[in-house]
């Protein structure tokens, strides 16, 4: 690992003053579950690491009449052990429960889950976010792309967004609190992620000198919600596909729906067509399956991941049924 300066501020103002102008110059440390591996493999070689764990104001999980606040430093354990989350936001609870390792749950944080880097093995092996060889040839389309994107890869980014929480936060219309030199701002969870154009960019809408401070989820207000993950094994692993659904029922029919998929695209994938397909209808096996079909209608699987299209359909259908149930 390359040598670096380590600083441990106690306020967010101090923290952002220590950040850099360019990505990679300074890295932010919270739970460490992603950053240390990246540094050990020289995927990132910061000159300074800013430890956020000393900033008490960024921790905690709080539920009130106005909604839920997850501090950026709240651990997965903090979220799981909160009974209000379990009762009112099963989509969030289930997404966090899918992170199966007790060690990672004890260490991993909400902010870290949102800002973790892609798990694409080309990226982790040093070929960059867009996974190109020295001649500029993209490696993923004819390479081992079994876990890569089936949607939204026109831009040339083929990795999938690895966040467990993001689809649930998008379905629940959450906002992400950000702090930087110009003060605090909020970004819709649905707008927070982006497909980067190259290695000088990141997969989220932050400037290099901004940090995530909190996640704000509106009061459930009768939104029934659920997350369903399709995974290879129950123990520690990322899902192959996941879906989070929030439904407002008017009588038996769906009055409003928000549906987001995880692990299928470089960003958490909002499935507008599936939402439209569901609105005005009662939730049944058939309407849920039709919405799932609509969610994946534009899927463009790569050479080795056509199987993910069906897994993603299953995730959408079962998340809809679970939310309505």
């Amino acid at each position: 690992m390359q040598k670096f300066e380590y600083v441990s501020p106690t306020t967010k103002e101090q923290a952002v003053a220590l950040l850099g102008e360019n990505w990679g110059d300074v890295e932010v440390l919270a739970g460490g579950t992603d950053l240390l591996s990246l540094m050990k493999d020289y995927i990132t070689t910061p000159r300074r690491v800013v430890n956020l764990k000393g900033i008490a104001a960024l921790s905690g999980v709080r539920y009130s009449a106005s909604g839920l606040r997850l501090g950026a430093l709240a651990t997965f354990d903090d979220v799981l052990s909160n009974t209000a989350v379990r009762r009112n936001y099963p989509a969030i609870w289930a997404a966090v429960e899918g992170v199966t390792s007790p060690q990672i749950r004890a260490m991993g944080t909400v902010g870290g889950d949102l800002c973790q880097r892609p798990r694409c093995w080309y990226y982790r092996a040093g070929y960059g976010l867009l996974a190109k060889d020295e001649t500029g040839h993209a490696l993923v389309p004819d390479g081992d792309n079994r876990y890569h994107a089936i949607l939204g890869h026109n831009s040339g980014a083929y990795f999938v967004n690895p966040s467990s929480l993001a689809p649930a936060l998008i379905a629940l219309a959450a906002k992400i609190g950000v702090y930087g030199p110009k003060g605090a701002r909020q970004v819709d969870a649905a707008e927070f992620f982006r497909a980067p154009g190259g290695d000088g960019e990141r997969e989220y809408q932050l400037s290099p000198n901004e940090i995530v401070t909190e996640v704000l989820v509106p009061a459930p207000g009768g939104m029934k919600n659920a997350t369903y993950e399709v995974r290879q094994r129950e123990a520690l692993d990322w899902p192959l596909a996941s879906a989070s659904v929030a439904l407002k029922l008017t009588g038996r029919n769906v009055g409003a729906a928000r549906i987001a998929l995880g692990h299928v695209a470089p960003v958490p994938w909002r499935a507008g067509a599936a939402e439209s397909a569901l609105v005005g209808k009662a939730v049944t096996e058939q309407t849920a399956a039709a919405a799932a079909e609509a969610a994946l209608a534009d899927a463009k699987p790569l050479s080795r991941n056509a199987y993910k299209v069906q897994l993603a359909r299953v995730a959408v259908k079962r998340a809809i049924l679970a939310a309505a149930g």
Partner: protein
Amino acid sequence: MKRLLDVLREDCRLTGTKEGCGEGECGACSVIVDGEVVNSCLIPVCQVEGSSVTTVEGLALNDQLSPLQRAFLEYGAAQCGICTPGMLMSAHALLLRRPHPIRNQILEAIAGNLCRCTGYTKILDAIAAVSSGNINKPDQSE
């Protein structure tokens, strides 16, 4: 930079804690920091300043193995042994929090610990035996 794991093994000479993957996936380096089981390979040592750290060496008391360690011995809950210290720490953390877990809770507690010999059954049996009090006292196991 030294990770907590490096300091434990190289500076403190507490080599019970093992390095497996070095990426938080295998749990061989599990230790307990302030009551929580964590992967010591993912923690820069400066981040645990002022914290209380328990390693596998801390389970035995007055040269007597802990009930959990005795159960692992008695049930043959180790093959190559590399995962054993981490398994012990995860199981110890579980039993501190929940002295009488059901089998599924034991499974969940060791979900972050890989055994490449795939000897999970004996490990589960050993942990279950401690929870049910079904292990020999140290003087009987001689």
